[in-house]
């Protein structure tokens, strides 16, 4: 074992491994893509930074949204489509939303086919629960551990295929051939720090979001935005990057659990929000939908109550589910019960919870073709939270899990289709591989340098918290950008100690580059969108701006290596979709939706 080894990077060897398709990420999106691609008979490699089954997908609680119409028979894809666009303030890619709403039911039934078990209705069908801003009762669930059921089903299915899974392996760079096609990646194993050069005919990025750029977050250490930055560095276009979702209800106390998610399922099951005056304040923000308004609205309401002095002892508002009683809670929300009892000494069947917005999800991401999930870079595909377009300015609860299934499958098939007709060489200059290895081991092997990556991450998180929170204004955003750029200037001085053997400090010295880059992009995009729309709430502007409502901001690395931002017009919706909104009422039968189903 080498400790404090000062070999230079070039002396680290590497292994070369080949697959038709390399999938980066083993959350719901990556695994669903792997299943699709192996079904086409291709050789598939899946890499994940954690162990299999530990991605954010496992933490999802509330449910997966799909218009099965099992509880409300009036539901159909049309209403799901419209709800998704309304919540996204029409910045959404309407074609993605259409495919999504139509295919989600089949993807859920497919999980059932593979052994997933959801709660049942009295008629013996998959049960559904209401959720914020979904017109109908739409979230298929099993208690409050839906994500666990979903990821287990997908991982067990994946393990029954020929796909190879590389656990605890991190990708640091995508390789492109002379034509600019993506033909592989460099990765290192977290366990031993061994390098692997993956050669592939296509790469699917399914790395999830970047909630770790903020301090108060429901995301795990993995959410550092690696995939979005890998793609950006390879020339991919990013869309709606200013849109970051603050979930209305994160835990606030004790400090160690701050930001941990309190599932929207609590409100779905009838939980009330109250301020310190005991007032059910949602009346003042959305009297019609109350606690089940869209997430951006409820998050701002909670935030406003606290800023105006009606907060709880630890700076939150109260969320009360005591009326369900112990038995009801143990049936519907057992995980939440346990989480509060064990970590906060609160018995939620007797006392209200204290909650405050927590950073949860990133709507923006890599821009993809709706049908195939191809990016603008040949050979590069993206699916899941790292992708952008489906959710627009705000994501509906439960729409992420079905997004993973619908577009994970489409990415797997899209990449497979591309690979079939592809005879491009995966060869690249060996110096490219050597340079990348050198870059990766540099923080460990250098003698100088005095920046601690954990501390830089903390500073960045504080800056984002302060300047790119859920209420924004130009001065503060600019100040935030200044802080981010100052941190960026310090990155070349990062130094870590120890060996390449499972060394979190060294791993953090890689992640910090991605965290800083994606933060910079978000703040730059947030400066451009000078209006209030969904998750982007500019206090220095009065409301939505109709002109900005017609465009997406596209971010792309320019020739100088800087983040170039372009306004791109949203194409008009075709008649068959725009007509849905003219009808006024939302009563589109499940019948028509059912016809799309192959099950």
């Amino acid at each position, binding site marked *: *074992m080498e400790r404090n080894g000062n070999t230079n990077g070039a002396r680290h060897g590497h292994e070369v491994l080949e697959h038709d398709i390399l999938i980066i990420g083993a959350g719901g999106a990556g695994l669903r893509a792997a299943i699709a691609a192996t079904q086409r008979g291709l050789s598939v490699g899946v890499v994940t930074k*954690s*162990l299999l*089954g*530990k*991605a954010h997908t*496992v*933490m999802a609680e509330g449910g997966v949204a799909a218009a099965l*119409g099992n509880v409300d028979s009036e539901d159909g894809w049309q209403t799901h489509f419209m709800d998704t666009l309304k919540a996204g303030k029409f910045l959404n890619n309407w074609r993605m939303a259409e495919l999504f709403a139509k295919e989600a039911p089949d993807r859920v039934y497919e999980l*059932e086919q593979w*052994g997933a*078990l959801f709660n*049942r209705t009295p*008629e*013996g*069908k*998959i049960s559904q629960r209401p959720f914020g801003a979904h017109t109908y009762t739409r979230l298929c669930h*099993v*208690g409050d*551990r839906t994500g*666990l059921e979903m990821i287990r089903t997908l991982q067990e299915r994946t*393990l*029954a295929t020929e796909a190879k*899974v590389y*656990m605890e392996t991190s990708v640091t760079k995508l390789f492109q051939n002379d034509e600019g096609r993506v033909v592989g990646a460099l990765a290192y194993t977290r*366990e031993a720090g061994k390098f692997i050069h993956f050669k592939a005919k296509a790469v699917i990025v399914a790395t999830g979001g970047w909630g770790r750029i903020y301090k108060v977050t429901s995301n*795990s*250490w*993995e959410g550092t935005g690696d995939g979005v930055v890998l793609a950006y560095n390879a020339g991919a276009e990013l869309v709606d990057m200013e849109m970051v979702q603050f979930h209305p209800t994160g835990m*606030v*106390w*004790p*400090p*160690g*659990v701050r930001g941990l998610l309190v599932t929207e399922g609590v409100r779905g099951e009838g939980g009330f929000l109250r301020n310190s005056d005991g007032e059910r304040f949602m009346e003042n923000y959305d009297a019609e939908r109350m606690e089940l308004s869209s997430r951006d609205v409820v998050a701002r309401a909670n*935030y406003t109550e*606290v800023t105006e002095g009606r907060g709880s002892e*630890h700076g*939150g508002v109260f969320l009360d589910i005591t009326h369900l009683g112990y038995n009801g809670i143990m049936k519907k929300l057992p995980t939440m019960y*346990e989480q509060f009892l*064990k*970590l906060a000494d609160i018995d939620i069947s007797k006392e209200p919870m204290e909650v*405050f917005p927590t950073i949860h999800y990133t709507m923006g991401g890599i821009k993809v073709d709706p049908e195939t999930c191809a990016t603008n870079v040949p050979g590069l595909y993206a699916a899941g939270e790292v992708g952008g377009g489906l959710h627009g300015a705000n994501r509906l609860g439960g729409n992420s899990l079905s997004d993973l299934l619908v577009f994970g499958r489409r990415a797997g098939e899209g990449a497979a289709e591309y690979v079939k007709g592809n005879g491009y060489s995966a060869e690249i200059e060996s110096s490219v591989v050597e340079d990348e290895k050198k870059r990766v081991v540099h923080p460990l092997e250098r003698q100088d340098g005095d920046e601690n990556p*954990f*501390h830089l991450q*903390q500073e960045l998180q*504080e800056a984002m*918290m*302060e300047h790119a*929170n859920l*209420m924004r204004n130009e001065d503060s955003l600019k100040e935030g950008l200044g802080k981010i750029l100052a941190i960026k200037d310090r990155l070349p001085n990062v130094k*870590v100690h*120890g060996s390449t053997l*499972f*060394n*979190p*400090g*060294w791993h953090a010295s890689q992640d910090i580059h991605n965290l800083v880059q994606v933060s910079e992009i978000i703040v730059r995009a947030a400066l451009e969108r000078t209006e209030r729309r969904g998750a982007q709430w500019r206090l220095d502007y009065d409301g939505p701006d109709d002109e900005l409502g017609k465009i997406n901001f596209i971010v792309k690395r320019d020739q100088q290596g800087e983040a170039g931002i372009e306004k791109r017009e949203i194409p008009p919706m075709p008649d068959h979709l725009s007509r849905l909104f003219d009808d006024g009422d939302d009563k589109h039968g499940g019948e028509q939706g*059912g016809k799309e189903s192959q*099950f």
Partner: protein
Amino acid sequence: MEEQEAQQKDMASKAHADVHADEEDAAREGESYKLRIFRGDAEGGREVEYEIPAVEGMVVLDAILYIQAHQAGDLAVRWNCKAAHCGSCSAEINGKPKLLCKARVEEYGGQDIRVHPMRAFPVIKDLVSDVSWNYEVARSTIPFTTDEQAPFEMYEEDVERLYEPKKCIECFMCQDVCHVLRTHQKHEEFAGPRFFVRNQWLEMHPKDTERRVEYLKEGRGGIGYCNITKCCTEVCPAGIHITDNSIIPLKERVADEYYDPAKWLMRKIRGRRSPKTGQIIGRNGNRNGG
């Protein structure tokens, strides 16, 4: 202090401010905790003592991440959810397997806190052990198989008992504590309690058509090695009654059906009756018109 106040002012709520801006409530003035943590790798190692400032409600994982950020950047530990949902952070505290994100420091009331990696698996480094063997067993498990097309007609009462084994978060602490693995190292012949839990739901799923008794008895399952000590049940953070609800019913099934395959066939057919209507649910017979 002034700086902290300023920061708190800028944030809408102290729920978004720096924890230490909140010093009076959170950090306990002058108080500290001491932990002894195993530092080493496959070749050996030793306990190292760390002292960290006490914060109210702190879990052992918080303490370890504090040490990582401030004192030992290369201290290896696994974690993801920090909420006892993902099963990543399993390790041993004072010799007992625990989820580090669920173990409150205060619970140890000033006693020694000695943190080691799980011992039934090879150590990689510090608190991280090599659990990849579990994924090999997972691959060897006979997956869910059915000849029916979803959507299935299944009632709450058909599937209720399957929710329990499905709660498994794959922390592998039951594997860690089981003497068949920990002491007798039967990793080649014994799947371990986590996989009996998985086989239980597979076997009891009303739509599954596979036969697993051979696998459980003489394949990789090796269920005969289990002598029902219940140690696994005691440590399961998901509260699964591994012995009573998974292992014993599987052992009975193996005893019954291994020698009498007709019983297996009977059960598979019977299993497909809807309890509501008493009718056999056949292929595609469960379509309820979408």
